């Protein structure tokens, strides 16, 4: 299964991703799906600095990524799809229904209207509803910041 993880993390490429998950999963490529980063060479340069040389980092918009999900999944590289917001994951699901099977909530920090669900996870009611809708559409959603922590299913985040 070459897409080995699809993660929501508002810090995008950082230590938990490249070290915490990158090593045990044997990641070969991180696909960062974020329209803002896709449009900024400066931002891309920053995020490239965060990944070790053995992990390629690719930057795409949601519109560019959606039609390529099946190809990454059928490919030989071990790929992590990384988004910074639940809305981006929902956008991918809308554009490519069924292309993603699982969603890892890795880090969403405090913000307007959000409530703490876990130490590393804050969700607004709208975001929770969006996740519940994605789950009804077949996406298996759980929260887990690092591989050594216990995965928490969506039903326990309400």
């Amino acid at each position: 299964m070459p897409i080995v993880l699809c993660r929501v993390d508002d810090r995008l490429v950082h230590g938990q991703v490249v070290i915490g998950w990158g090593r045990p999963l044997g990641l070969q490529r991180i696909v960062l799906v974020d329209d803002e980063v896709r449009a900024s060479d400066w931002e891309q340069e920053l995020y490239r600095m965060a990944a070790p040389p053995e992990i390629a980092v690719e930057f795409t918009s949601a519109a560019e990524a959606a039609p390529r999900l099946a190809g990454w999944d059928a490919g030989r590289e071990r790929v992590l799809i990384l988004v910074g917001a639940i809305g981006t994951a929902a956008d991918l699901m809308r554009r490519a229904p069924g292309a993603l099977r699982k969603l890892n909530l890795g880090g969403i920090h405090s913000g307007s209207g959000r409530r703490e669900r876990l130490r590393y996870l804050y969700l607004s009611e709208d975001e929770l509803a969006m996740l519940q809708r994605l789950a009804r559409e077949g996406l298996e959603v759980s929260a887990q910041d690092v591989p050594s922590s216990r995965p928490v299913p969506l039903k326990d985040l309400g």
Partner: protein
Amino acid sequence: MSSGVRGVVVGHGGVAAALVAAAEEISGMHGVLFPVSNSGLGKVDLERRVLEAVGEGPAVIFVDLPSGSCLFAAMRQLPSHPDVRVVTGVNLVMLLEFLFHREQSPEEVARRAAESGSKGIGAR
């Protein structure tokens, strides 16, 4: 506090606060170094904290790791703050050098602090 380049230490968990406390204890100089932790903060909030700590500048931002969210938050200050420099791999030697030599340009202060910090690392 006295004029000169301000220091901002950005790190994971309690690293920044601990380093600043230790540097202040050794030097007796307070109000020059400002710690920022990334704990519990997303990208936007962390950048805002760093920006608040930098203030009007000039400043040197010391970061714990040579990559990651703390470095990104620091680097994002550079385009709009020509009098700010970033130094990675912060250690106590570096901060003490900074505290006693911060009257030159941020570029020179940063260079000197980085050099001292590097020299403080050794295996015996």
